[in-house]
């Protein structure tokens, strides 16, 4: 799986979910762009889109806080 393609799909989802464009390295949690439902919606999106399960051990903010980091996390998980 190619990280730039994954990043593009995640970027589209995040943009749609937040109603605003975010840069690949912008921390949408830190910027206060998310509502209380977003965290589990984001997990549902990557789980369904890339057919893997986010485990409790994956709960590291660094995996989810930006488009780039999430794309890297998805690619790493799928390569397992």
């Amino acid at each position: 799986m190619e990280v730039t393609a994954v990043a593009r799909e995640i970027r589209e989802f995040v943009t749609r979910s937040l109603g605003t464009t975010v840069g690949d390295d912008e921390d949408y949690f830190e910027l206060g762009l998310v509502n209380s439902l977003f965290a589990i919606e984001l997990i549902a999106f990557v789980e369904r889109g890339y057919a893997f399960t986010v485990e409790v051990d994956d709960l590291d903010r660094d995996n989810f806080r930006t488009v780039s980091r999430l794309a890297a996390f998805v690619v790493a998980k799928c390569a397992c």
Partner: protein
Amino acid sequence: MRVLSVEALGADFAAAVREEATGWDRRGALPAEMARALGANGLLGADLPRAHGGLDAGAAALGELCAHLGGVCSALRGLVTVQGMVSAALLRWGTPAQRDRWLPALARGTRIAGFAVTEEGAGTDLAVATTTISRAGTGFELTGRKRWVTFGQVADVFLVSGLVDGEHTTVLVEADRPGVWREPVTGQLGMRAAQLAHLRFDAVSVPAENLVAPPGFGLSHVVATALDHGRFTVGWGCVGMAEACLREATGHVVNRRQGGVSLAEHQVVRGLLGRAAVDTAAARELCRRAARLRAAGDPEAVVGTVAAKYAAARAAAEVAGSAVQVLGAAGCAPESRPGRFFRDAKVMEIIEGSAQVCELTVAEDLLRRHGYSTAGAR
């Protein structure tokens, strides 16, 4: 032996206890054996995998089960809801040891769970909670107060939210730990058999292995997962309430004559029934849609569930009110089921996201789709 579906099991169970529920509400408690009776059929963890003591039921089957139970007793459905909420959180974010210890016991009803999140100053806005979970030795020490805990009077374990170093976190707290105090709540508007309690945690020692998810993920992931599951089962319970009220109202209208004229002859009565029937059917379809979204793992399932819960709670409140109206004095009688559901339904419009919060959530979702950032709004 024929294996019954989850829905059929739920229908049978509901039918068997239908006439007892009024007494439960009056006494303010479910019979002590009720949890094990539901659990013996697997109905307290129907959607859990079989490996964890569940029946592997899908979202739709879980929903139908809650509709059957909700049509009989909100507290009984509430027991399925709270066990399901805590189980969903542990299934998703618990450790293997936490799952092994609690999930089969919760599914079988040999243990009862409480969801202790709401505080005096933190209801709709859970982020302002003040309960502290301090690091102490190899584990933690919990201090704080929680309110309105469903089955808090009898729960064996609580999933409690609090702050570790200022970060929202969740821990499992066994009820028999020193420093856990319960204050029973009685006589509240609705769900009177749900054995509510306010809780006080007074420097309660909690081992490190009771932490659920890392600090910082308690509200956004653990509590969010539990509440999402709770909204789904509450919504379906409301569908059951609305359907039961519609049946009673229609049955009464057909059989009742005043001044030599059947109530069914009155256009105002027909109009009321027509509205109630449409509200009820609409609520059921929105709950079915939520079930489909959940089964598909769709990210839209969260908001879809909020919408379903909102519509179903509103339908239950409206239809119960209409049923009481049509039944007249009989609807106001102590043993009236629509009267009981009228009280319960109002509670459903408040818990697991009040009607007003649900409206905002759905609206924000809509606005974001149109490119309007609702940042900072909850």
